[in-house]
C-alpha cells in the first residue's frame, strides 16, 4: 500500500530557480548550533574549513558574507569549460585527473574580477538571511544529493527537467527535440492528464521556447493564472513554474523585479516568489493536502559547493555525446557525470519536519538530478511509459519523503509577505 501522502496526491508543482549552489544557499545550516550540538546534523552543508586557492595560491575559506545583490555583479562562469575548471581545479584534460572542487576562485578570476572580488565566489548565506528557504528546508524535506544534470549552463539543464535529456547539448544554443522523446507536458496531455508551464509574465516569458511555445501554446500560462488556478481549484495535475527573469515596468507604472535569483538579481525577491508560490498552495486546504511542491535550482551558477558530482550508471545512458568542438574543453562529453549540487526542497504536509534525504555522504544515499522530474511525474501519473531515455527511466523518485501522516494545519507555516 502506498503511504497516504502518495495515495492522496493529485498535483505536483515544480518551481525552478536560477544559478545558486547548495552550499551557497543552505550550507550554513550545518553550522547552526543548539545546546552545543548541530541543530541540523543530517544536512550535508559546510564545516567552515572548505577553501579554494586564489590566483596568488592563497587558500580562501568559505565565508558567511553573501550579499543579496551587488556581490556577484560579474556573472560567474557556468558554461561547460568553466564548470569543468571548478570541478577539476585545472584546465588540464589529461587522463587520471581527479575532481577536487578546487577551481571556483580560479574560474571566477576569469570573469574580469579583481583578486578580492574573485574570493566572493566562496560566500554563503547565513540561514537568517534566507528566512523562506531556511524555513522550508527545515520544515519539509531537503535533498542532500540533488545535482544539476550537466556540468554546464541553464538551457541544457532545464531541458532535462522538461524532456529528461538535452538531446546531446551542453551549451545555451537552440536545440531541437528528437523523436520519439516528447516533453513531460505533452506526455501528460496525451495520457489524459493536465499540465502547464507557468511563466512569470510576457515581458519575462519562458526559457522553453522554440519547441513548446511555438507548437503547444495551450500548455502555457502566466504566474497570475497560477495563483488564480490555486484559488479556484483548477490547478493542473502537473505544473512547472518559471520565475521572472528580468526587471521591467509593471502594470499601472509599477516595477516588476526579477525573482529568479540569477546573479546579479536580488536574492530577496526570489525568496518572496518562493513564499508567494508556497502560500498559494498552503492557503487552500484542499490543494495543500493533495499537492507536493518541489523547489529546485537549475544549476549552481558557478558558485562554490563542496560535494564532488557523482558519475552516472553506465548501464542507463543518455545515449548522447557532445563532441569535442561543442564542449569548449577540446574533449567530448559522454553525459556520464552530473553537474554541481543545487538546493532542492520537497514540500508537503505529509513530510515530517526536518526530513533530509541523504546523498553522496551516505553509502545508502540517493542521487537526484533534473531527469528525476519528468521521471517521477511520468511514473506517478502515467505508469509505464517507454519513449524516454534509459537515464530518465532509471532516475530516482523524488516523492519518497511523503509518508502516511498528515501534519495538523497548525503545525505548518504560512509566510507573511
Amino acid at each position, binding site marked *: 500500500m502506498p503511504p497516504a501522502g502518495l495515495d492522496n496526491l493529485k498535483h505536483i508543482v515544480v518551481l525552478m530557480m536560477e544559478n545558486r549552489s547548495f552550499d551557497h544557499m543552505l550550507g550554513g545550516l550545518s553550522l547552526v548550533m543548539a545546546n552545543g550540538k548541530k541543530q541540523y546534523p543530517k544536512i550535508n552543508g559546510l564545516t567552515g574549513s572548505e577553501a579554494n586557492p586564489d590566483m596568488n595560491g592563497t587558500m580562501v575559506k568559505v565565508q558567511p558574507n553573501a550579499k543579496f545583490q551587488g556581490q556577484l555583479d560579474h556573472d560567474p562562469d557556468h558554461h561547460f569549460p568553466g564548470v569543468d575548471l571548478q570541478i577539476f581545479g585545472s584546465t588540464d584534460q589529461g587522463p587520471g585527473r581527479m575532481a577536487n572542487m578546487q577551481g571556483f576562485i580560479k574560474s571566477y578570476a576569469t570573469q574580469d574580477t579583481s583578486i578580492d572580488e574573485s574570493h566572493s565566489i566562496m560566500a554563503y548565506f547565513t540561514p537568517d538571511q534566507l528566512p523562506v528557504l531556511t524555513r522550508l528546508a527545515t520544515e519539509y524535506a531537503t535533498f542532500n544529493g540533488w545535482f544539476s544534470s550537466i556540468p554546464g549552463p541553464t538551457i541544457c539543464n532545464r531541458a532535462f527537467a522538461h524532456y529528461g535529456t538535452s538531446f546531446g547539448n551542453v551549451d545555451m544554443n537552440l536545440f531541437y527535440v528528437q523523436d520519439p522523446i516528447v516533453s513531460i507536458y505533452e506526455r501528460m496531455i496525451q495520457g489524459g492528464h493536465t499540465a502547464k508551464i507557468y511563466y512569470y509574465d510576457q515581458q*519575462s516569458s519562458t526559457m522553453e521556447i522554440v519547441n513548446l511555445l511555438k507548437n503547444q501554446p495551450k500548455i502555457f500560462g502566466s504566474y497570475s493564472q497560477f495563483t*488564480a488556478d490555486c484559488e479556484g481549484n483548477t490547478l493542473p495535475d502537473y505544473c512547472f513554474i518559471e520565475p521572472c527573469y*528580468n526587471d521591467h515596468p509593471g502594470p499601472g507604472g509599477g516595477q516588476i523585479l526579477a525573482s529568479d535569483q540569477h546573479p546579479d538579481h536580488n536574492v530577496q525577491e526570489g525568496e518572496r516568489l518562493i513564499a508567494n508560490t508556497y502560500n498559494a498552495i498552503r492557503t487552500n486546504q484542499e490543494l495543500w493536502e493533495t499537492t507536493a511542491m518541489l523547489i529546485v535550482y537549475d544549476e549552481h551558477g558557478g558558485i562554490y559547493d563542496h560535494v564532488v558530482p557523482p558519475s552516472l550508471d553506465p548501464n542507463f545512458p543518455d545515449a548522447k555525446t557532445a563532441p569535442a568542438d561543442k564542449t569548449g574543453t577540446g574533449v567530448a562529453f559522454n553525459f556520464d557525470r552530473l553537474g554541481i549540487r543545487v538546493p532542492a526542497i520537497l514540500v508537503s504536509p505529509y513530510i515530517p519536519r526536518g526530513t533530509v534525504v541523504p546523498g553522496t555522504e551516505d553509502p545508502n544515499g540517493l542521487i537526484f538530478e533534473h531527469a528525476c522530474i519528468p521521471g517521477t511525474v511520468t511514473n506517478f501519473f502515467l505508469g509505464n511509459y517507454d519513449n524516454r531515455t534509459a537515464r530518465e527511466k532509471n532516475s530516482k523518485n523524488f516523492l519518497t519523503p511523503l509518508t502516511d501522516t498528515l501534519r495538523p494545519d497548525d*503545525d505548518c507555516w504560512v509566510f507573511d509577505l
Partner: protein
Amino acid sequence: MLKREFKLVQKVPRTPKSAYDHGRFISSLIEHQLKHFNELEKSLLKAGEKLTDVSKIKTELQASKYLKRMTALLHPQGGEKPKKTIRRKRIRRVPGGEAKGKTARRRRKS
C-alpha cells in the same frame, strides 16, 4: 481576509526598491533567450517585415519589450487577466503564535 487563522507565520522582508534596475545589462542567459526568440521570429515574419537585430538589445528593459512582443504573438492569453479574481489576503496571526523575526524559533511539540 483569510477564511482561516494560521498559528505559525513567518515574516518575509520586503526587497528594497533600490534592487530595481531595468537599465541593467542583460546576462548571457537573457542574451540566449533573445537569440532563441529571434530564430522563432524568422518563421513568423510576414512579407515586408524586418527581422529584429537582437544584438542591439543591451538592457533588461529593452529585452522585456522584445520578449513581450514575441510572446504575445504566440501566447496572447498570457497578457490577459487571470480567469479568477485574486483577493489580497492578509495573514491573520493567532496571538502567541507569530514568529518574531530571525531570533524566534517557536516549535510546536508533536
